[in-house]
Protein backbone atom coordinates (compact mmCIF):
# COMPACT_ATOMS: atom_id res chain seq x y z
CA UNK A 1 0.00 0.00 0.00
CA UNK A 2 1.21 3.51 -0.78
CA UNK A 3 -0.13 6.76 0.63
CA UNK A 4 0.97 9.81 -1.36
CA UNK A 5 1.94 13.06 0.35
CA UNK A 6 1.50 14.85 -2.98
CA UNK A 7 -2.10 13.73 -3.14
CA UNK A 8 -2.80 14.48 0.53
CA UNK A 9 -1.16 17.90 0.35
CA UNK A 10 -3.81 19.09 -2.10
CA UNK A 11 -6.22 19.22 0.83
CA UNK A 12 -4.10 18.99 3.99
CA UNK A 13 -4.00 22.07 6.24
CA UNK A 14 -0.38 21.21 7.06
CA UNK A 15 2.26 20.26 4.50
CA UNK A 16 3.11 16.56 4.75
CA UNK A 17 6.64 15.37 4.04
CA UNK A 18 6.80 11.77 2.86
CA UNK A 19 9.12 9.57 4.94
CA UNK A 20 8.14 6.17 3.56
CA UNK A 21 5.16 4.65 1.73
CA UNK A 22 2.98 4.99 4.82
CA UNK A 23 4.48 7.69 7.05
CA UNK A 24 4.67 11.48 7.01
CA UNK A 25 6.03 14.36 9.03
CA UNK A 26 4.20 17.64 9.46
CA UNK A 27 4.70 20.80 11.53
CA UNK A 28 1.81 22.70 13.08
CA UNK A 29 1.14 26.42 13.45
CA UNK A 30 2.49 26.05 16.99
CA UNK A 31 5.76 24.74 15.49
CA UNK A 32 5.24 21.27 16.90
CA UNK A 33 6.48 18.45 14.70
CA UNK A 34 4.47 15.23 14.32
CA UNK A 35 5.06 11.97 12.53
CA UNK A 36 1.96 10.05 11.49
CA UNK A 37 1.78 6.70 9.76
CA UNK A 38 1.16 3.00 9.69
CA UNK A 39 3.23 -0.09 10.46
CA UNK A 40 2.33 -3.50 9.16
CA UNK A 41 0.74 -5.67 11.83
CA UNK A 42 1.90 -9.25 12.06
CA UNK A 43 0.49 -10.12 15.46
CA UNK A 44 -3.27 -10.09 14.92
CA UNK A 45 -3.79 -10.74 11.21
CA UNK A 46 -1.28 -12.21 8.80
CA UNK A 47 -2.18 -9.64 6.18
CA UNK A 48 -4.42 -6.60 5.71
CA UNK A 49 -3.97 -4.88 9.05
CA UNK A 50 -1.76 -2.02 10.18
CA UNK A 51 -0.90 -0.30 13.42
CA UNK A 52 -1.57 3.45 13.40
CA UNK A 53 0.97 5.71 15.11
CA UNK A 54 1.14 9.44 15.63
CA UNK A 55 4.24 10.68 17.38
CA UNK A 56 4.93 14.06 18.84
CA UNK A 57 8.57 13.82 17.98
CA UNK A 58 9.94 16.42 20.37
CA UNK A 59 7.47 15.69 23.19
CA UNK A 60 6.19 19.25 23.11
CA UNK A 61 2.64 20.10 24.15
CA UNK A 62 0.60 22.88 22.65
CA UNK A 63 -2.98 24.11 22.75
CA UNK A 64 -5.66 21.96 21.11
CA UNK A 65 -5.24 22.21 17.35
CA UNK A 66 -8.22 21.11 15.22
CA UNK A 67 -6.06 21.04 12.10
CA UNK A 68 -4.30 17.93 13.43
CA UNK A 69 -7.61 16.07 13.28
CA UNK A 70 -8.06 17.37 9.72
CA UNK A 71 -4.66 15.91 8.74
CA UNK A 72 -5.49 12.59 10.38
CA UNK A 73 -8.88 12.50 8.65
CA UNK A 74 -7.25 12.91 5.24
CA UNK A 75 -4.66 10.24 6.01
CA UNK A 76 -7.34 7.81 7.18
CA UNK A 77 -9.54 8.50 4.16
CA UNK A 78 -6.64 7.69 1.86
CA UNK A 79 -5.69 4.62 3.91
CA UNK A 80 -9.19 3.15 3.87
CA UNK A 81 -9.85 3.98 0.23
CA UNK A 82 -7.25 1.67 -1.23
CA UNK A 83 -8.17 -1.89 -0.26
CA UNK A 84 -10.07 -3.70 2.47
CA UNK A 85 -7.88 -2.96 5.43
CA UNK A 86 -7.93 -2.75 9.20
CA UNK A 87 -6.37 -0.16 11.48
CA UNK A 88 -5.22 -1.05 14.98
CA UNK A 89 -3.88 1.26 17.63
CA UNK A 90 -2.46 1.14 21.13
CA UNK A 91 -2.13 4.46 22.94
CA UNK A 92 1.44 5.21 23.95
CA UNK A 93 1.73 4.64 27.74
CA UNK A 94 5.37 5.63 28.22
CA UNK A 95 4.61 9.01 29.85
CA UNK A 96 1.54 7.81 31.80
CA UNK A 97 -0.72 9.94 29.61
CA UNK A 98 -2.36 7.03 27.82
CA UNK A 99 -5.81 7.73 29.29
CA UNK A 100 -5.71 11.29 27.94
CA UNK A 101 -4.50 9.95 24.62
CA UNK A 102 -7.33 7.42 24.57
CA UNK A 103 -9.86 10.22 25.09
CA UNK A 104 -8.31 12.17 22.24
CA UNK A 105 -8.16 9.14 19.96
CA UNK A 106 -11.77 8.37 20.83
CA UNK A 107 -12.71 11.94 19.94
CA UNK A 108 -10.89 11.70 16.62
CA UNK A 109 -11.82 8.18 15.61
CA UNK A 110 -15.41 8.15 16.87
CA UNK A 111 -16.10 11.26 14.83
CA UNK A 112 -14.31 9.79 11.84
CA UNK A 113 -16.15 6.46 12.12
CA UNK A 114 -19.52 8.15 12.41
CA UNK A 115 -18.94 10.22 9.26
CA UNK A 116 -17.40 7.46 7.15
CA UNK A 117 -19.48 4.31 7.79
CA UNK A 118 -16.77 2.70 9.87
CA UNK A 119 -16.72 0.63 13.01
CA UNK A 120 -14.59 1.72 15.95
CA UNK A 121 -14.05 -0.62 18.87
CA UNK A 122 -11.76 0.16 21.77
CA UNK A 123 -11.02 -1.39 25.13
CA UNK A 124 -8.50 -1.26 27.94
CA UNK A 125 -6.10 -4.08 28.71
CA UNK A 126 -4.11 -4.35 31.92
CA UNK A 127 -0.81 -5.97 31.10
CA UNK A 128 2.25 -6.14 33.34
CA UNK A 129 0.73 -3.59 35.76
CA UNK A 130 0.13 -1.03 33.02
CA UNK A 131 -3.24 -0.07 31.59
CA UNK A 132 -3.19 -0.02 27.79
CA UNK A 133 -5.90 1.41 25.57
CA UNK A 134 -6.25 -0.47 22.32
CA UNK A 135 -8.64 -0.14 19.44
CA UNK A 136 -9.58 -1.15 15.93
CA UNK A 137 -11.12 0.79 13.04
CA UNK A 138 -12.51 -0.82 9.90
CA UNK A 139 -15.08 -0.12 7.22
CA UNK A 140 -18.62 -1.43 7.62
CA UNK A 141 -18.29 -3.14 4.24
CA UNK A 142 -15.05 -5.00 4.99
CA UNK A 143 -15.76 -8.56 3.73
CA UNK A 144 -14.67 -10.01 7.09
CA UNK A 145 -16.07 -7.25 9.26
CA UNK A 146 -17.86 -9.31 11.93
CA UNK A 147 -15.14 -11.97 12.13
CA UNK A 148 -12.41 -9.36 12.51
CA UNK A 149 -14.26 -7.52 15.25
CA UNK A 150 -15.03 -10.70 17.18
CA UNK A 151 -11.48 -11.97 16.81
CA UNK A 152 -9.97 -8.68 17.98
CA UNK A 153 -12.22 -8.58 21.03
CA UNK A 154 -11.18 -12.16 21.85
CA UNK A 155 -7.52 -11.34 21.27
CA UNK A 156 -7.60 -8.47 23.77
CA UNK A 157 -9.52 -10.51 26.32
CA UNK A 158 -6.97 -13.31 26.15
CA UNK A 159 -3.98 -11.12 26.97
CA UNK A 160 -3.12 -12.11 30.53
CA UNK A 161 -2.53 -9.47 33.19
CA UNK A 162 0.57 -11.21 34.38
CA UNK A 163 3.20 -12.09 31.84
CA UNK A 164 5.55 -14.94 32.50
CA UNK A 165 8.45 -15.50 30.18
CA UNK A 166 8.20 -18.86 28.50
CA UNK A 167 10.90 -21.28 29.63
CA UNK A 168 13.28 -21.83 26.73
Amino acid at each position, binding site marked *: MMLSADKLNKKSPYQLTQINDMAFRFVTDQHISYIVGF*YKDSFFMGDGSYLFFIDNADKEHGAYDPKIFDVITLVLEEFFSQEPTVMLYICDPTDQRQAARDRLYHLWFYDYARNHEMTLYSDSVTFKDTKYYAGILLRHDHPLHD*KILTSYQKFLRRVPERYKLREK
Partner: protein
Amino acid sequence: MKDVFIRYNSPEEYAEAFQQMIDARGKWREQIRQQEAQMAL
Protein backbone atom coordinates in the same frame (compact mmCIF):
# COMPACT_ATOMS: atom_id res chain seq x y z
CA MET B 1 -9.79 -21.12 3.16
CA LYS B 2 -6.61 -19.61 4.59
CA ASP B 3 -7.03 -18.38 8.14
CA VAL B 4 -6.53 -14.63 8.21
CA PHE B 5 -5.98 -14.47 11.96
CA ILE B 6 -2.83 -15.46 13.74
CA ARG B 7 -3.63 -18.20 16.21
CA TYR B 8 -2.14 -18.43 19.66
CA ASN B 9 -2.33 -21.48 21.88
CA SER B 10 -1.63 -20.26 25.38
CA PRO B 11 -1.85 -17.16 27.60
CA GLU B 12 1.92 -16.83 27.27
CA GLU B 13 1.66 -16.67 23.49
CA TYR B 14 -1.06 -14.01 23.72
CA ALA B 15 1.13 -12.08 26.12
CA GLU B 16 4.12 -12.25 23.81
CA ALA B 17 1.99 -11.16 20.86
CA PHE B 18 0.63 -8.19 22.78
CA GLN B 19 4.14 -7.31 23.95
CA GLN B 20 5.30 -7.29 20.35
CA MET B 21 2.39 -5.09 19.42
CA ILE B 22 3.48 -2.64 22.13
CA ASP B 23 7.12 -2.85 21.00
CA ALA B 24 6.11 -2.11 17.40
CA ARG B 25 5.97 1.61 18.26
CA GLY B 26 9.68 1.61 19.05
CA LYS B 27 10.46 -0.33 15.87
CA TRP B 28 8.39 2.12 13.83
CA ARG B 29 10.21 5.07 15.40
CA GLU B 30 13.58 3.51 14.64
CA GLN B 31 12.52 2.78 11.08
CA ILE B 32 11.46 6.44 10.70
CA ARG B 33 14.69 7.68 12.26
CA GLN B 34 16.77 5.64 9.83
CA GLN B 35 14.71 6.68 6.84
CA GLU B 36 14.87 10.36 7.73
CA ALA B 37 18.63 10.05 8.23
CA GLN B 38 18.86 8.58 4.71
CA MET B 39 16.77 11.44 3.34
CA ALA B 40 19.14 13.94 4.93
CA LEU B 41 22.18 12.53 3.11
